């Protein structure tokens, strides 16, 4: 039955994941193709245009370090993760299907844990693909004029990991009851500062960052399960 529920969740968010994957593919594809077609940049105006939409066109940019890759990766990931979490939590509410779902003979905790595992797991999988693809490409000799080490990808991985906080905070916003929309978003507002700190390119020992994400994640998970157990699904 967990499998049936997981498949249902997967099918419900598949289109959002597909859009996200396409956005990531465009971003990575643009970087790689621009690097492979340096000659095109000699065309007057084209370089400036490409640099204006994304600073990938600079031949001095180092993947993951220079250019706006991490900013764009953050934006796409954030939009994607918020869309997935709201679809899974608020979507059931809006369609009135919680009564149908929660009457299945499965504990409420299992239902919500399954939702979270599928949603977050799939997001992390899809969001890891552009990092791995771009990293692999950059690590391949002869593809890029600059030096590359896998440690240069750490800022991007930090964003990747911190998005789990955004996912859980959004899910909590979607599931908890509130008198008005402003207070519904309270969990998200509370998570904004930690989220920005975790995702910012600040020097932070990886252990501190990981522990922070785990602790905040555990707190949010607890809040979600508590909200699921105590709220009215009217």
């Amino acid at each position: 039955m967990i499998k049936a529920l997981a498949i249902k969740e997967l099918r419900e968010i598949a289109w959002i994941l597909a859009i996200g994957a396409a956005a990531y593919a465009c971003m990575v594809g643009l970087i790689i193709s621009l690097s492979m077609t340096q000659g095109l940049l000699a065309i007057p105006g084209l370089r400036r245009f490409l640099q204006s939409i994304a600073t990938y066109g600079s031949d001095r940019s180092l993947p993951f370090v220079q250019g706006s890759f991490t900013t764009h990766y953050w934006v796409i990931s954030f939009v994607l993760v918020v869309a997935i979490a709201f679809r899974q939590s608020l979507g059931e509410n809006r369609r009135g299907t919680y009564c149908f779902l929660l009457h299945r003979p499965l504990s409420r905790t299992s239902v919500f844990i399954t939702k979270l595992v599928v949603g977050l797991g799939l997001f992390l999988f899809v969001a890891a693909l552009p990092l791995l693809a771009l990293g692999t490409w950059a690590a391949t000799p002869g593809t890029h004029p600059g030096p590359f080490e896998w440690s240069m990808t750490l800022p991007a991985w930090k964003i990747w990991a911190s998005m789990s906080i955004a996912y859980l905070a959004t899910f909590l916003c979607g599931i908890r009851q509130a008198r008005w929309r402003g207070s519904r978003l309270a969990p998200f507002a509370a998570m904004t500062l930690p989220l920005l700190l975790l995702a910012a390119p600040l020097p932070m020992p990886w252990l501190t960052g990981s522990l922070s994400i785990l602790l905040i994640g555990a707190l949010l998970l607890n809040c979600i399960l508590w909200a699921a157990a105590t709220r009215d699904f009217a």
Partner: protein
Amino acid sequence: MDYVIETRRLTKFYGKKCVVDSLDLHVPQGSVYGFLGRNGAGKSTTIKMLMGMVHPTRGSAHVLGEDAAELSPDARCRIAYLAEGHPIYRWMTIRDAMRFTRPFYSQWNQTLFDQILDHFELSPRQKIRRLSNGQRAQVSLALAIAPDPELLVLDDPTIGLDTVVRRDFLESLIQIIQRKGRTILFSSHILSDVERVADRIGILVDGVLRVDCPTEHFKQTVRKIVLGFDREPPEFPPCQGLVSSRPVRNDLELIIVDYTETHQQLAESLDPQSIEIVDLNLEEAFIEYTRGPRRRLPVFAREESDDQSIGNQGAA
């Protein structure tokens, strides 16, 4: 008597508003219980509390012997619940909905499910979003019955259905009822539906359970008495069992629960030209009963022996 559903002083507040007030509901095993009430009376909230979807502010509810707020997966396997509006995932086909639901139940009866679809002329390939309200109700019913539940809880299952579909739906329900030991609790606005299938009714008025008795008993006990006068009708004196008193031209129409000799004497004391006792059907009885001054409505008390309960009602 064994009760499949039992509530004790079940109360629900939304903010400061009391939606369900100290509800003592008892649904006997094997009965078909029609749960009635006007819009906003608290029927859906009660059903949601019974299914553990809404938490009561006070009181308790037990379904199949378990606390309704913490129904175990085993108990949920034995209960079919059709929520109001028949919520099913609209992006699914009927087959998808079946494939999603089936793994949750060990006793899934695929033959029965197919038979029901066949009966309603539904194809498993049809998308839920393309179905009419009636067809969605039929799919919900098929999904609910296939696990062979002991208890069916239906929240206004015929709402939005046309007469023919409603009749068809109810006939299917009757077939299901015929299975021994199965209990059905269903809420409805359509009194003729309830009259057709329910052997027992409960009426909620502003969150208070005013009636809990066999359907026939309710119909027989609520009476309309028309006193004809050759002058402007006088006021009828307040008494036990009087629901409402309404002058209509030279007549005085009284709605009385449990019309007795005392009422007869009071009526005669007004010196009317005629006294006519009118039998009401369920719909008329329900309307007359629920539109009276609500705080003074006589309560139909639940009795161990319902046959004797006519003479045992007290004023609220």
